[in-house]
């Protein structure tokens, strides 16, 4: 029997549904998305392109821009890695062990999501500046954190801290006790059980958290500028360069750096996601 489809697929791209309101809700979200996000971002690309290839290249290859990009991306990756290690550890401790104040600490992990970045920034500066709470203790030892790239790293660790914890926690919590019990009954040592039963499902989730922490850290501004010292070529981050260009009314230059940042971070996030996909397949996830 042949099936004619007259009424049903009224438009090819949308399934007809009895639930109303598609037109108006889709209209609102697309309009808002275009006005608030997409058109402004298009203006950014347009402005950057208006600079012309020669100027773009000159800017992109200038030592100061390169230094800032290297610092922003390098510190973000390093901070995300620190958060990967400690995030998995903290998630493990919060899921598996009982200790006083656990619920309170669990809630506190989200503080970096809730605390305004400027507040974090001045607090970190007050801690790690050479005359700060910890900085003054380290200064006699010749260790400087505030106003150096290490300060940038501290700020980026702070703002990225919750991501890995929050992606790994549910995976650990939902893991079936039977899996570990089966491994133990089959004679595996505790470490072998951890390695072969717990790590495979946790790793992809931890990677997801890593990517999120990295994406957040790359563009971070508020918490960094107070503690970085902002020395060109040393502790100056890429978003700050954009602000400086804007203050000099060099719109095109600011736009070029902005587009460079976006393109670089999308390439890195894409690569990390591909790696994570490969990891999932390797570890037998669907």
């Amino acid at each position, binding site marked *: *029997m042949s*099936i004619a*489809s007259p009424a*049903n697929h009224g438009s090819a791209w949308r399934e007809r549904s009895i639930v109303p309101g598609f037109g108006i809700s889709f209209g609102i979200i697309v309009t808002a998305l275009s006005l608030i996000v997409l058109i402004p971002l298009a203006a950014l690309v347009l402005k950057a392109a208006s600079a012309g290839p020669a100027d773009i290249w000159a800017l992109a290859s200038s030592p100061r821009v390169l230094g800032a990009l290297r610092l922003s991306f390098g510190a973000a990756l390093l901070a995300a890695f620190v958060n990967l290690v400690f995030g998995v550890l903290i998630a493990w401790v919060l899921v598996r062990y009982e200790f006083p104040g656990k619920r309170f600490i669990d809630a506190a992990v989200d503080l970096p999501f809730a605390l305004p970045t400027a507040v974090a920034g001045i607090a970190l500066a007050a801690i790690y500046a050479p005359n700060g709470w910890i900085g003054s203790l380290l200064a006699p030892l010749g260790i400087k954190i505030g106003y150096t790239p290490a300060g940038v790293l501290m700020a980026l660790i702070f703002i990225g801290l919750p991501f890995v914890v929050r992606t790994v926690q549910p995976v650990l919590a939902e893991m079936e006790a039977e899996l570990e019990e089966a491994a133990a009954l089959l004679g595996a040592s505790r470490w072998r059980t951890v390695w072969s039963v717990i790590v495979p499902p946790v790793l992809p989730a931890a990677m997801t958290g890593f990517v999120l922490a990295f994406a957040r850290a790359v563009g971070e501004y508020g918490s960094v500028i107070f503690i970085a010292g902002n020395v060109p070529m040393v502790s100056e981050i890429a978003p700050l360069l954009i602000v400086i260009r804007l203050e000099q009314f060099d719109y095109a230059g600011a736009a070029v750096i902005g587009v460079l940042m976006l393109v670089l971070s999308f390439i890195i996030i894409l690569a990390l996601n591909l790696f994570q996909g490969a990891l999932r397949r390797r570890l037998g996830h669907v």
Partner: protein
Amino acid sequence: MSVLLQIDNAARQFGSFAALKGVSLAIEPGELVALLGPSGSGKTTLLRLIAGLDFLDGGRIAFDGVDGNALSLRDRRIGMVFQSYALFRHLTVRDNVAFGLRARPRQERPPSAEIDRRVRDLLALVQLDGLEGRFPSELSGGQRQRVALARALAIEPRVLLLDEPFGALDAKVRKDLRAWLRDLHSRTGHTTVFVTHDQDEALELADRVAILHQGRLEQVGTPDAIYDHPATPFVCSFLGETNRLPVEVQGGQAWLDDQPVYAASTTNVIGPADLYVRPQHLKLDRPDVSPLAGVVEFVRRHGAIRRAEVAIRGLSKRLDVDIGGEIAPSHGERVGLRIQKAHLFAAA
């Protein structure tokens, strides 16, 4: 008799999957009809099409002669009991049941005293008096199901639709609710269509059973008619346990290995065929007089009866034979089998 719900050639396609391939069915007022089939047979799709929750790709569904496409959901007046019940969790039992009445446009809405009275009557009907103030989360599964039913009945539906009404309940509750629903239907007389994958449920409850398989209607009829006279091999094997014997039909006899095992005089099947025999229609006989003989390999208890598994030479599957009052054969004993009743279908 008049037709309340007329389904003509209903078809529905999901991407490349044809969920319904042209199903026609007429339902009369007051009938209790079961849509029976395995999962993926299209029964829920058909129910949702009747309800107006999904759209036909072909064919037509009409209510009292009016095309469903011309009716809004409100005008269709369908009382639907969802498989998950879809009770509004933030509303009490009372407000759930009253929802459809309060949702009417002002000029059609009954006064609130009248709504209260109808809700009370309905809750009494489904035996939930006293639970008006509860929230769905405070009810058992069976109670939730009855709230969903009362809510659907409140709008005085033209047709009551039930999607796997007993699916989410445990075995004991299912049995109780089944009898209760049958009783309720005979008292209220609502035209009812329900979906189930459970043959016993369909056969016990329904006035007529429509069997769906791979998007097609295989057979529709009273429980007795479809059970005793299955139209297709699928219906025969879906409605109960069967043994399948590959036979050759020649001269009014079905032959297995040159032995005439069943008189096939009333059929027009000729040549290779499949003979479907239910375990209760195989009777033990003396091996020397029976054309069908084999060795008993197992005897097991099967609920109220015992069942023997008999290996027949030339057949890869053992035959299931129900043993009633007679003395059970012992393991390894050679027995003959007599086929009392069977269904013959040309080999696929």
